[in-house]
């Protein structure tokens, strides 16, 4: 899910358009936009219940997740912005074309009507990656995000990249240990937690990196599914968790959501 592998530039919508934010959006704005997209997808899936939209929802979630994970990472974002600039010289303007969401216009209007006035027009200042902008505190911003500077975030990610890089062998050892007794590598909460600890990444760090609240990250590891309103939110957060730790996304989503569904079935029956 790196911008290089599957560049959305060629698919028509930039990450900014996918999340419906301007290219000048701050981290908090991007974080809130992602939450809003999850909410929208949840509502849509809820309202279309039994109308088989699952693959579509899945695809959308992956797109949102990819966009968010990239834009929340200052290093990846800078790189992505450069690519965007090269692909489309007038990308700056194109970014303000909001993508055609499948939720109807009046509904979107209703949803954002209150917010527009709150957050005011997006800052139209020139994009400058070196600017040490303090992230603003907004009502719904997670407290983990508040107070981080661009430089601090860059450090987080550099640190994370190093940890991911250095633990590759350890991880392989761990996998082969799991496989040793005829077992399989099955990514449940405990395994994810074990991997995170092998990488010596704390939950607190992970929360700061992913901008996802600690309670959700912990709930993923504890398989405490009550914390999630729906599968949509769980998937949305899981994508960020898995991406940050550089793990195989599709396999994990499939296996982990299988667990979640079993749990739901058991609760019903």
């Amino acid at each position, binding site marked *: 899910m790196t911008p290089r592998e599957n560049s959305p530039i060629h698919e028509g919508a930039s990450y900014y358009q996918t999340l419906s934010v301007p290219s000048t959006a701050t981290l908090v704005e991007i974080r809130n936009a992602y939450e809003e997209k999850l*909410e929208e997808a949840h*509502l*849509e899936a*809820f*309202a*279309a*219940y*039994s*109308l*088989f*939209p699952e693959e579509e929802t899945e695809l959308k979630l992956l797109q949102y997740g990819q966009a968010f994970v990239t834009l929340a990472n200052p290093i990846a974002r800078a790189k992505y912005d450069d690519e965007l600039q090269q692909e489309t010289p007038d990308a700056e303007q194109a970014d303000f074309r909001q993508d055609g969401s*499948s*939720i*109807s216009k*009046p*509904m979107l209007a*209703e*949803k954002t009507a209150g917010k527009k006035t709150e957050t005011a027009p997006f800052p139209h200042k020139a994009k400058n990656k070196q600017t040490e902008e303090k992230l603003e505190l907004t009502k719904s911003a997670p407290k983990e995000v508040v107070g981080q500077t661009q430089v601090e975030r860059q450090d987080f990610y550099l640190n994370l990249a190093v940890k991911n890089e250095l633990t590759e062998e350890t991880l392989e050892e761990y996998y082969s240990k799991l496989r040793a007794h005829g077992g399989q590598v099955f990514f449940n909460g405990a395994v994810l937690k074990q991997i995170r600890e092998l990488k010596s990444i704390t939950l607190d760090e992970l929360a700061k990196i992913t901008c996802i609240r600690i309670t959700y990250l912990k709930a993923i590891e504890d398989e405490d599914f009550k914390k999630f309103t729906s599968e949509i939110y769980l998937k949305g957060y899981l994508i960020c968790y898995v991406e940050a730790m550089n793990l195989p996304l599709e396999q994990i989503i499939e296996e982990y959501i299988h667990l979640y569904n079993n749990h739901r079935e058991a609760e019903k029956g």
Partner: protein
Amino acid sequence: MENNKILAIGGGKGGVGKSFVASNLGILLAQSGSKVILADLDLGGANLHTWLGVNNPSKSLSDFISRETLNISKLLVSTNIPGLSLISGAKDGVEIANLKYTQKRRFLSALRNMDADYIVIDLGAGTSYNTVDFFLLADIQLMVVIPEPTSIENAYRFIKNSFFRQVFHNSKKFGLKSVVTPILRIDNPYNITTPKTLIDYFNKLGGSKTVFIEEQLQIFMPKIILNQVRTEKDKLVGLAMKDACSKYFNINMTFLGYISEDESVWKSVLNRKPLAVASPDSVPMQQLKTICSDILLKETELTSKNNLLSKLAQ
């Protein structure tokens, strides 16, 4: 008496507030000066009389169906609300749970000839042909849904069954019965499982078939009321359902509005006093009033449009 309007209230799942909407809508219409008959077609679980605080009437729909009572007006029970009378539902659902289509028509045409401005039918739960047929024979087709997965699922099944049933009935008139019958089978080889696939199939056939399906779409106008709304997010479900319906079914349904969950509703049931009488100014009643006037407005617009069209056609 050609001018009475029949409103049917269905929606699939039980316990979502169909009787609540039917009884209070009936009262609102009566209070605005119309002559209203409430008919309880909740076959099996008829209790509209309880909603209206009327004692269990001696004569009910069963007597008309079994032809013990031939004059439908004899079934009318007056209520405490001026202008509003009630036709009580069957006491025992067994003999009318499987009505023949002709019996339904006989009942409906009897209703149409009654002296009233509006006839409000409470259809009860279910998505069976029985319920769906009455729904389709009505002039105004209302569905009550609550923001819960089971209710939403039932609503779509109701919409799907209704549309398929309508296409089936009308295919006879258009001489397309031989085309329609095989494709409405569950195991049809054309993979037609939703209104959308049905519409696409007809459109591909072209010619008179395309015209036919276009007409069927135009006359199919389910309207949704979202009941028991608790949160801000719940309110969004109505429009989202409209979107989903048009996206996955190709069917244009109208979202009429939502009614908030309120303790005044169950209190009114406990006291056997309809909300429109017990707390006419409560939030749910105000919302229902808006919905009611919206229904009437849409109906007037439609009638005048149809009148204009028929004038132009002459």
